[in-house]
């Protein structure tokens, strides 16, 4: 079954002719798999207590059957689409003739309904069954029907009637997790037309409020916020109080959800107030640090100076959290100092880097690091002195002297170029 799964997993329109010729076989094979699926759940004659491994094996089998069935039906859908109206009618007739209790097969057929769409004619043919599936009693059918939205050809989106959009938006409030999660995910991949987005606004907000609760938190709240912000908020709203409210929700996240907040929203939330605070929390979070802090650094470096001004304490805390300083954290320390300096706080930048300088060991291996840190500290000190009208000529002399030392050190190092640069900076 695994081999068959691998073979059928990827389907292309080029295989349409083959799929047309074997349409009945594909659907027949898929239907047979339904039986196998059902047999898995049937009780065995002998009652044997199942252990964890038995459960795992059963689950794997179930996934393998489901995967193969989905793939076979996708091939059949490609064949049906290539035969246009006649093929689509054949596909839907088969779908309609399936018994109600064959939920798995019906779900795997309806999930491909959008792949049958070629134009307005095909849309009028599939809408009726698709709409009924959105309203189906079975949770799985509703979840699959809503999932199908993500593959609707972009040009056809404007031709869907209001009733369809209303039915879809109701599913965002579906009590079953599978349904409303699929609804949000599909919406993130294929959005509603502008004039229909108001239909999902309150539903998405409800989901955000629900999943933002401390005991319900998972990555899904980030998806909801992403879709809500991109579909339902105007530029002014993003930059205003609603944007701030969303940032505050994100600020309460922890672990994986917090990591995903930065990973997913780092480009979309540039203009949202308070988002840099989320990045500053994430950068200190253990989960994020165990994966990568690169996105957090991007957010901090791109943040506007007005935003950074509100994060002075957070920046200082993040810097202090690096103690005891390690060479590999030097870039991160520079990020905080650059951010402090960006909004004009060169005094704190100076203090931070003087603390760092004191902790750098005075041995040969760390000379370059020490010189670079000293240059940054001196530069921050000079800028601070300029800003507050204090004398800085002596500081300039010190800067020049450090520059000379660094050039000398670089010249020394040039003689040892065979070693990778990391040889000196690590450990």
């Amino acid at each position: 079954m695994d081999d068959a799964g691998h073979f059928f997993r990827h389907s292309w329109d080029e295989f349409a002719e083959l799929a047309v010729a074997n349409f009945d076989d594909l659907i027949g094979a898929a239907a047979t798999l339904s039986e196998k699926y059902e047999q898995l759940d049937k009780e065995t004659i002998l009652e044997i207590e199942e252990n964890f491994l038995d459960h795992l094996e059963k689950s794997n089998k179930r996934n393998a059957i489901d995967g193969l069935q989905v793939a076979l039906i996708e091939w059949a859908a490609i064949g049906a689409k290539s035969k246009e109206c006649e093929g689509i009618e054949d596909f839907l007739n088969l779908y309609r003739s399936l018994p109600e209790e064959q939920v798995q097969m019906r779900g795997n057929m309806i999930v491909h309904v959008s792949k049958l769409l070629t134009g307005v004619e095909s849309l009028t043919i599939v809408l009726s069954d698709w709409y009924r599936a959105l309203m189906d009693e079975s949770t799985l059918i509703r979840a699959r029907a809503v999932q199908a939205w993500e593959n609707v050809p972009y040009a056809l989106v404007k031709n869907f009637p209001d009733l369809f959009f209303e039915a879809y938006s109701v599913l965002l409030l579906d009590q079953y997790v599978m349904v409303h999660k699929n609804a949000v995910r599909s919406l993130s991949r294929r959005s509603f037309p502008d004039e229909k987005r108001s239909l999902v606004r309150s539903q998405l907000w409800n989901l955000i409020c629900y999943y933002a609760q401390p005991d319900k938190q998972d990555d899904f709240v980030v998806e909801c916020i992403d879709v809500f912000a991109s579909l339902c908020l105007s530029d002014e709203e993003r930059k205003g109080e609603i944007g701030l409210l969303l940032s505050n929700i994100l600020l309460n996240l922890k672990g994986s959800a917090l990591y995903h907040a930065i990973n997913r929203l780092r480009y979309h939330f540039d203009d949202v107030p308070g988002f840099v605070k989320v990045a500053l929390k994430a950068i200190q979070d253990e989960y994020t640090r165990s994966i990568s802090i690169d996105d957090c650094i991007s957010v901090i470096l791109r943040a506007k100076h007005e935003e950074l001004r509100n994060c002075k304490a957070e920046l200082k805390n993040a810097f202090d959290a690096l103690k005891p300083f390690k060479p590999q954290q030097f870039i991160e320390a520079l990020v905080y100092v650059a951010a402090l300096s960006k909004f004009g706080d060169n005094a704190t930048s100076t203090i931070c880097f003087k603390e760092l300088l004191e902790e750098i060991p005075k041995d040969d291996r760390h000379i370059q690091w020490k010189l670079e840190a000293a240059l940054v500290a001196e530069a921050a000190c000079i800028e601070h002195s300029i800003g507050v009208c204090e004398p800085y000529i002596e500081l300039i002399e010190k800067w020049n002297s450090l520059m000379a030392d660094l050039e000398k050190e670089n010249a020394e190092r040039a003689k040892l170029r065979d070693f990778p640069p990391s040889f000196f900076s690590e450990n």
Partner: protein
Amino acid sequence: MQNEPNFEIFRQAFSPRIEIAAALDRALRSTPHDLAQLKEACQKLNETIDELGQGYVEDQYRAYYTAMTIFVSLAEWKHAIRNAEVDAQRFLNSAKLKASEIDMTSNFSSNKQLNEFLEQVKITDTLDSLSTIQDQLTRWSLPLLLFANLHNKDIGGIRHLISNEGSEDHKKLESTVAFLKFDIDGQPAKQWNYLKPGTSYDLTIEVRVSNWPKSANLLLLKPVTIDARERGWLPDFRFEKPEGDGPFTLTGIGRVILEVANSFGSRPYEFLYAAEFDNSSDCRNVAVVGHRRLLLEGSDSTQYPLTGFSNVDRHLIKIRNMLRAFPGLHSDDIANTMIILGGLGNIAAQALKAGLFVAGTSEQKFQSKIAEMLRSRSDIGEYLQGHPEAAGGITDLTFKDVPVELKVENNKVLFPKDFQKYFDQTAAYAIGLGKRIGVLSVLESSSKSAPVGVVEDDIEVFIHPTGQTQIAIVVVVIRGGFPKPSFYSR
């Protein structure tokens, strides 16, 4: 923004920046050496700035450099005057010209210190003001340019490639199909249209097509509807490509027949006309604009009466359509309100027809009579609740959580708009019950000296603002206190 610091650029930018800061202090003195140093430092800073890309910190450096180049001209002006050079004023003119020529749309031009500096340059006419300008510049601190964005030399090439690739696409035009007219039997289609089931109507459609795709021969207009059984009730339109270059205005006429009536509480039939060319491969996009959605009402009030009085039913259909247009009102609440309005409409009509309520009827008597008559209707019955609590008060009646507030007016003839004093109370009950709609029914049983009671005047919808939201309030006035019609002839 790169996530890696660029120490090379940091040093290259900061060294001339502090050289400028040091030379600036002495630039106005009599020794020309300091001015030369300032110019040289500016030149070095310029070389580094040329390498920089976009960014806030980068713009701060640009603004600083721009101010310095203008200050150099001002310093030259002072030196020229001191040395009694010919036409020393040209340096001041040069500085002012440079200041006025700064592109104010560029990002760095919004810098506050630069703008203050430029304002001062504009008003400078004597050497006295130079020291003020110099003081301001010496206090100009900059952020550290640790993570510099650099000009990416490859971007130009990539852009060039993209623009070449895109040029083919740009040659393709966007076709527009604009729906200009939708007429049903010669009358423009409205938001809601009532069509009698089983009767055929003429549907006239007019579209304007701009940029007909060259590869297309046909334009198809097809109604899209959810229910497969409704396919074919509205006509498809098929237009062949007209001669000429366009834009074209095309008109088509077809027949509309609603084959099945819909129930009073159900949604109207919805049809959305989609436009599609038979081949639009050489067209970038087909934009469809204009009114192309038809909501057709096919409820048959003769066959399925709501109140038992056809004139009241017709008016209630209008009321329902107004409620449907009120944003945020749940369709279930509208359906439930319509059921209760069916009952109240029936009572209002009966009151007019049979004189149910005498003049001076008490509120208690009115309430018990109304509750009795409403409960006797099969679609209301047990769902009518008497005196449940809501919003800290006691409502008169509720039907499936839609509040029904009952009042009596025995003094003078009043109309729905005159009962606004009760709106807040009704709205409070509605909010308390989690609804955005409430019903206010008033028995107006003052002694009549003239006939009143046209149903169109006695049942009305009001949108009542409360706090940050709005509540729909339907007012039903039930008339009482009528004398016998012969009384009016006396």
